């Protein structure tokens, strides 16, 4: 789960990572009130889950009330690389002496947390890496012993940051790691990590991703919603606990297990079709989950045919078949379905479908055959 800048900063503040004063605003009036409370100059910042806000005009300095009003009006509702701006963050302006880059993330290769620091902040980490790969210092942390003072010193000295801020930057990295651990983050990124004219160290931006599997431990974070951050179908799927990603095509896809669904997308594409979505009904998909999934897939108006590709392990094909029958009873289905059931209880599943004799449901034996059939039916 990705957090907006200001949501990430609120987590930072909770764990002692220094951030500038600020207030969120959803209307021009709230933005002006925030500006008045914080005191000028302030920065008006678009809150969207995408980079490049500055270049897109989503970050503006305001030196008085009139400028806050003007910028808030311009930025609210703005489209930034496909994301509509529904919220602003009104923040005390900071003076910039140096811009560094800092991050903590899970390194999948080493299976360890990794802390990163660079003296070249304010640009994308990819851009830093391109300019000077040695400018990014990486250190693995043993999660059982935690972030030690020496990790902070090592990062700070090896990154070649200003000598007078070695200690506070090391301390900030320790707090950043604490945030990462305490909040079950997969990523915390600070870019830029700011050194002000008075040599204070401040996180000027915050990019935080929380592990969705751990949200049960963080009920407050789980409740944060990003208006406009998600597609309508994706939001509907999320509410029903389904993993759904919208794509550009017209063939609705449902499968069980991420690998099989990905493979199904590939096979449909190879057969000349264009998938409308990725939908993993998950291990042990129950009948209700299937009903939910059919609703989500069909709520996308582009869909002209649907492919069910099930290979049952923990999922039982009879439950999938029952779910499909129930869905057809509840929903007015207008597009053809191709269904391929294999694995646990597959015969029972196929029997259920045969007995129900649903309109427009075609049963296929193989994955390639099913893909070819659905491409044909989708037109």
């Amino acid at each position, binding site marked *: 789960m990705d957090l907006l800048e200001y949501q990430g900063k609120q987590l930072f503040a909770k764990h002692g990572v220094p951030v500038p004063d600020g207030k969120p605003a959803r209307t021009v009036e709230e933005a002006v009130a925030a500006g008045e409370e914080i005191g000028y100059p302030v920065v008006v910042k678009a809150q969207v889950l995408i980079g490049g806000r500055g270049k897109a005009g989503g970050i503006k300095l305001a030196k008085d009330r009139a400028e806050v009003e003007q910028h808030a009006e311009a930025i609210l509702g703005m489209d930034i690389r496909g994301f509509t701006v529904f919220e602003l963050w009104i923040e005390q302006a900071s003076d910039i002496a140096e811009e560094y880059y800092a991050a903590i993330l*899970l390194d*999948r*290769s080493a*299976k*360890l*947390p990794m802390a990163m620091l660079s003296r070249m902040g304010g640009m994308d980490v*990819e851009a830093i890496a391109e300019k000077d790969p040695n400018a990014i210092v990486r250190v693995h942390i*043993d*999660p*059982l012993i935690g972030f030690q003072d020496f990790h902070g010193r090592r990062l700070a000295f090896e990154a070649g940051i200003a000598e007078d801020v070695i200690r506070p930057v090391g301390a900030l990295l320790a707090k950043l790691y604490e945030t990462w*651990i305490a909040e*079950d983050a*997969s990523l915390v990124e600070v870019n830029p990590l700011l050194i002000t004219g008075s040599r204070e160290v401040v996180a000027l931006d915050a990019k935080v991703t929380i*592990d969705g*599997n*751990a949200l*049960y*431990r963080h009920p407050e974070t789980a409740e944060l919603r990003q208006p406009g951050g998600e597609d309508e179908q994706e939001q509907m799927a999320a509410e029903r606990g389904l*993993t759904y*990603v919208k*794509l550009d095509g017209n063939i609705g896809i449902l*499968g*069980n*297990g*991420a*690998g*099989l*669904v*990905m*493979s199904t*997308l*590939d*096979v*449909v*594409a*190879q057969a000349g079709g264009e*998938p409308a979505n*990725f939908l*993993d009904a*998950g*291990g*042990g998909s129950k009948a209700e989950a299937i009903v939910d999934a059919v609703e989500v897939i069909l709520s996308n108006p582009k869909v002209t045919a649907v492919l069910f590709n*099930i*290979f*049952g*392990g*923990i*999922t039982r094909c009879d439950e999938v078949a029952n779910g499909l029958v129930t869905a057809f009873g509840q929903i007015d289905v207008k597009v053809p379905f191709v269904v391929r059931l*294999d*694995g*646990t209880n597959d015969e029972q599943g196929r029997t259920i479908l045969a007995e129900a004799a649903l309109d427009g449901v075609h049963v296929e034996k*193989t*994955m*390639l055959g099913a893909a070819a059939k659905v491409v044909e039916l989708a037109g």
Partner: protein
Amino acid sequence: MSILVDKDTKLVISGLTGREGTFHGLNNLNYGTQVVAGVTPGKGGQKVESIPVFNTAHDAVAETGANTSMIFVPPRFAADAILEAADAGIALVICITEGIPAHDMMRVYVHLKRGDTRLVGPNCPGILSPGKANVGIIPAHFFSEGNVGLVSRSGTLTYQIGNEIAQQGFGNSTIVGIGGDPIVGSSFIDVISKFETDPETELIVMCGEIGGDEEERTADYIAERVTKPVIAYIAGFTAPPGKTMGHAGAIVSGTSGTAAAKAEALEAKGVKVGKTPTEVSDLAVKTLRG
């Protein structure tokens, strides 16, 4: 022969008394696996059909000599159950549970790496050595004994490919689902190194997917250390970059980690890569028939 599970496997199941635990536990028992115990705190002394249930893994090991553990408990209790099994001296823990927090697994992984317990999974379908033992949720009736070692990050994709090979008349030494989470206990390399020394295995099939750099590192390992033929499949060519596809294992980040990059890395090291499950099966069969 086979790897990891076989006739000597003595299985204890954490979560045996739950609905899914009972269903799959009994499936494993009926397949012929020695399922010697279940663990459910507070239900010690009960039985699930013929299988005795204990309050702790320690009791189960002491009473039954269990050497392998299968974890079937909900995600928030899974890390604890894995650690308990390891503490009780279990040599191989197979974790089926999906949705375990990554930080839990990170701590468990680092802890186990320093001890004597091997972990397979989590979020995996388990391990099947056809004709010998089935530990997990792999639908065993599709598979028969044979000489193809199969290792996969994806559960259902494993069945798909294993099944296609079976339909052409070939069997498997062992089928290992390693799981698709960011942190899993055993890697492709761990499993392939075991297939390499397993006399029954003559061909290795690996099923990867987008995300991470496991497949790339495995390509290097195969080139350096593996003498047996390896056929690979990678899922996710159609996945748009930056979108999460199901479990966190499938995040494409930057230029690396794409299906194309992985397929290329494998082919560069001489590993044949099939474009569909059917093509993988055809390549495997062709190689086996020489």
